[in-house]
């Protein structure tokens, strides 16, 4: 008859475990990171973690933030919205972090951004590109220092406008990121090149993220009338796509190809010489794109420590930490509200170049890079040559267009 009584004891036990682990020391400045650390996109989280660790070590060696040591807490959001919200609540409520950074997946970003209002804690997004979080659903606590879809596709359409291709199609992931990339591409390119033709929705190739065999999509594109292809696949999907498409003669020069996230070192390291030459690829950061001392120092330090070149995700995490340090220096405190105020309008020189966070929508105006894949005998991976750099102000849509009503 007492069997439910035991359940009670168990419940109490769990309660104590949870309560007991909630004690936090408040000495160091705490930064919480949420990235994908498991599953098919885990390699992005790995690079980000390395970037963050590098930045934090640099800051700590230089005396910390406002004289306080910086401590990093990494959480795996698994690319799932519910997990993302859980880990961010954990970081804020339990670990008492002063700021949260990261987020790879757009789905997680969409879920997490509104919650930051309740947590009253700043969030700097370093990867997820969904426009809404600095657009229609923007809020006081959410910032982004990485390029969003808008900006990236603005560059893609500029390059596309100079190409011979007339009829365009897309190969993208069958979720919001892929669809939005294609929608913006059509919008921007038809402005720059009114005679551009786009294949209807039934004829473009959106593949579910679990796809490993892309042959059907490659065939579909090759048999369409399109002579230009916007590829917005990323991660393992992009690797599989490129390898299989190459074998099927996709890169035979008969069509113009733009890969919006093709210059991710995560992908280039996996593909190595299997990445075809002469393809236009985009990225949020390219380690050879500029010669500033700050970039050189970052690339050298990163390579020395991790034996690989930094990816854009590594740079995103590195840059976010540096940005936060700058905001803290400006505010002379790590008080969350003051940090938010300091981040608004902040300009800082990062390896990627100078970025400015717009106070109106919290989107960073940052330079973008596209380039053509090329061989360099000195390098283990494909490099970009020529590189085409875009000034942040040219590719960032005006605040009025974003739908954000912060100010």
């Amino acid at each position, binding site marked *: *008859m*007492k*069997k*439910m*009584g*035991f*359940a*009670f004891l*168990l*419940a*109490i036990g*769990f*309660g104590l*475990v*949870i*309560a007991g*682990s*909630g004690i936090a020391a408040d000495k160091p400045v705490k930064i919480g990171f949420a990235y994908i*650390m*498991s599953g098919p996109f885990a390699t992005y989280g790995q690079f980000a973690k390395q970037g963050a660790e590098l930045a934090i070590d640099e800051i700590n060696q230089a005396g910390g933030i406002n004289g306080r040591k910086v401590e990093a807490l*990494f*959480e*795996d959001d698994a690319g*799932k*919205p*519910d997990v993302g*919200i*859980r880990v961010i*609540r*954990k970081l804020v*409520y*339990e670990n008492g972090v002063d700021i949260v950074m990261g987020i790879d997946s*757009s*789905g997680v970003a*969409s*879920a997490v951004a*509104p*919650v930051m209002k*309740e947590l009253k804690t700043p969030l700097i997004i370093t990867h997820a590109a*969904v426009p*809404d979080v600095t657009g*229609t*659903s923007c809020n006081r606590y959410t910032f982004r220092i990485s390029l969003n879809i808008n900006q990236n596709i603005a560059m893609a359409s500029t390059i596309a406008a100079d190409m011979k291709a007339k009829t365009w199609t897309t190969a993208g992931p*069958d*979720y*919001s*990121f892929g*669809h939005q990339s294609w929608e913006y591409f059509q919008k921007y390119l038809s402005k720059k090149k009114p005679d551009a033709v786009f294949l209807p929705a039934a004829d473009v190739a959106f593949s579910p993220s679990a796809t490993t065999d892309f042959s059907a999509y490659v065939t579909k594109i090759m048999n369409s009338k399109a002579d230009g292809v916007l590829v917005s696949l990323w991660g393992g999907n992009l690797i599989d796509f490129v390898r299989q498409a190459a074998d099927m003669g996709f890169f035979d020069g008969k069509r113009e190809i733009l890969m919006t996230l093709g210059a991710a070192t995560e992908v280039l390291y996996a593909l190595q010489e299997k990445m075809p030459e002469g393809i236009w690829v985009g990225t949020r950061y390219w380690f050879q794109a500029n010669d500033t001392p700050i970039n050189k120092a970052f690339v050298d330090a990163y390579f020395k420590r991790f034996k690989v070149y930094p990816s854009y995700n590594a740079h995103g995490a590195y840059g976010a930490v540096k940005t936060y340090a700058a905001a803290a220096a400006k505010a002379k405190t790590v008080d969350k509200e003051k940090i938010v105020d300091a981040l608004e309008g902040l300009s800082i020189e990062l390896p990627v170049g100078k970025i400015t966070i717009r106070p109106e929508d919290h989107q960073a105006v940052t330079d973008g890079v596209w380039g053509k894949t090329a061989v360099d005998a000195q390098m283990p991976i494909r490099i970009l040559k020529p590189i085409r750099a875009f000034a942040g102000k040219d590719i960032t849509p005006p605040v009025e267009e974003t739908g954000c009503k912060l100010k």
Partner: protein
Amino acid sequence: MRFRARGDVVPVLLILLALIAAPFFLSIYGLIVLTEILTMSLFALSFNLLFGYTGLLSFGQAGFFGAGAYFAVLTLIHGPGSLWAALAAAVIGSAVLAAVIGWLCVRLDEIYFAILTLGFGMMLFTIAHNWRSVTGGSDGLGNFTLPGLNLFGHDISLFHPVSFYFLVLLIAALGALLLWRVVGSPFGLLLRGTRENSLRVSFVGANVRAVRLFAFILAGALAGLAGALFAFFNRIASPEMLHWSFSGKAVLMTILGGSGVFLGPAAGAAIFFVLEHVITAYTTNWMIFLGAILVVLVLAFPGGVLGSLLDRLTRGRKGPPA
């Protein structure tokens, strides 16, 4: 299957009291974890009405969980912004869905039932994922405001973790109470009879398909209710909630806690989250530990953790069942 109505009242009341007192001794984050545990408990309990009591392993239960979430959020966005209207929409909507899908699924048994429900669950997932104009596609539906509650003339904001916790506690407790009544009712006896021997049940004149269907609808409705709470909790309804791997979570929690004890699934939910919480504090490789722990639990606790503990306890006291 064991339940004895009277003997369990006292411990259940004690648990309830502890849960009511929880906000006074738990940290905010502890309370948030407990909120999630309660929500998932309701989900797992609804699943166990089918699994433990009816003998039907549904791998599509997340379909109704997620559908409830979308119905609730869509009601908040497009319909009346009332919390109760949203919850009602979740319950009714997922019950109707469960009626249609259940009507097809209850024809099958065992592993075939499991796989068919998985199939239908994934069809619902595809709808949530691909019908972008309505469901927001893969990003989900997050642009809604959680309405406040008006209690005795006081507006209570559900944004506060404590008030939200009490809402979830209230609804989860009511849901559990309902399920408790169901499994102890004449219909509940028929369910257990169906689990034991569906052939015999149909040869005493019951329409086994109708009995199963009714259980399926009840379970679907309560899963929808839990899903609505989960969407409110996370401030978003997302397609992941309908994916088969989410159904797998309910299966996992139920078997972890023990499908043969009424509160087993709830205990399983608690164990799952506490384990995750403890392990991720030390490593990001938490799946490897979860996997190993699962293997050990399955081998060492054949009736689930709660089930096996209670078994040992009662056996110690009363000797082996006569």
